[in-house]
């Protein structure tokens, strides 16, 4: 999956970071075959995900709007349609962990009415730490069916994926301004 970090991303401390929906150019029906979240978001209007069951701890919130803020890419927001103050920061996990390939049983996906069980996208929920260090949940990915806009958070009972996978090394020693 190509690294789509060619967009300039300025750190603008203090600037408004409230996510605004991207204006999306429709490029035809690529959603059903979108092979990356980035492609999917770029080609879809009104990206409201309908969860077939609410996520653990977030009972009653089954409709989530996908918001893309250009200065936040590749992160995306999910915003609950029943409570706008409730947002989740998400990222496509394979952008960070290239070999992340959890087994999501096809029967599970078919039962959810995922039209095309083979073509699903994954999103990991990001927790922003108080010290700026963030983690993403690889243990319970959100599985998205682009063609039906259905989604479900699946808890991976097997496998060693952590709930709190650090998003970047503690100390790279790199100058962040390079």
């Amino acid at each position: 999956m190509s690294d789509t970090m060619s967009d300039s991303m300025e750190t603008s401390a203090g600037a408004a970071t409230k996510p605004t929906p991207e204006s999306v150019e429709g490029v035809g029906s690529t959603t059903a075959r979108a092979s990356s979240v980035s492609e999917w978001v770029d080609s879809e209007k009104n990206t409201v995900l309908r969860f077939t069951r609410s996520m653990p701890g977030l009972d009653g919130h089954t409709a989530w709007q996908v918001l893309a803020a250009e200065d936040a890419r590749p992160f995306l927001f999910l915003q609950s349609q029943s409570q706008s103050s409730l947002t989740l920061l998400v990222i496509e996990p394979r952008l960070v962990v290239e070999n992340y390939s959890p087994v999501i049983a096809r029967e599970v996906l078919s039962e959810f009415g995922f039209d095309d069980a083979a073509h699903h996208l994954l999103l990991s929920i990001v927790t922003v730490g108080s010290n700026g260090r963030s983690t993403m949940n690889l243990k319970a990915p959100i599985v998205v069916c682009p063609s039906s806009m259905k989604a479900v958070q699946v808890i991976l009972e097997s496998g060693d994926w952590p709930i709190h996978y650090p998003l970047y090394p503690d100390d790279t020693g790199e100058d962040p301004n390079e």
Partner: protein
Amino acid sequence: MLVLSRKVGESLVIDDKVQVKIVNVRGNQVRVGVEAPGSVSIVREELFRAIASANRKAARRNDGAISALASSLRVSQDASKRGGTR
């Protein structure tokens, strides 16, 4: 909470479609078998609780840290491309 007694080999049926069977008992460990449609999520309670807690913690106001996060991620990806340690 509904509490029932079962012997090894006996079962419960939940909501007509979930069957819980006591497979084996050894000491204080019980092996429980569950038959359910694929859409029914079955996880150990402590794992469910941990996910619920992580979800709730993540679902707060996320304003402010986003740009910093994105540029930090780019730094990390550049570092790993240059052969930096993860």
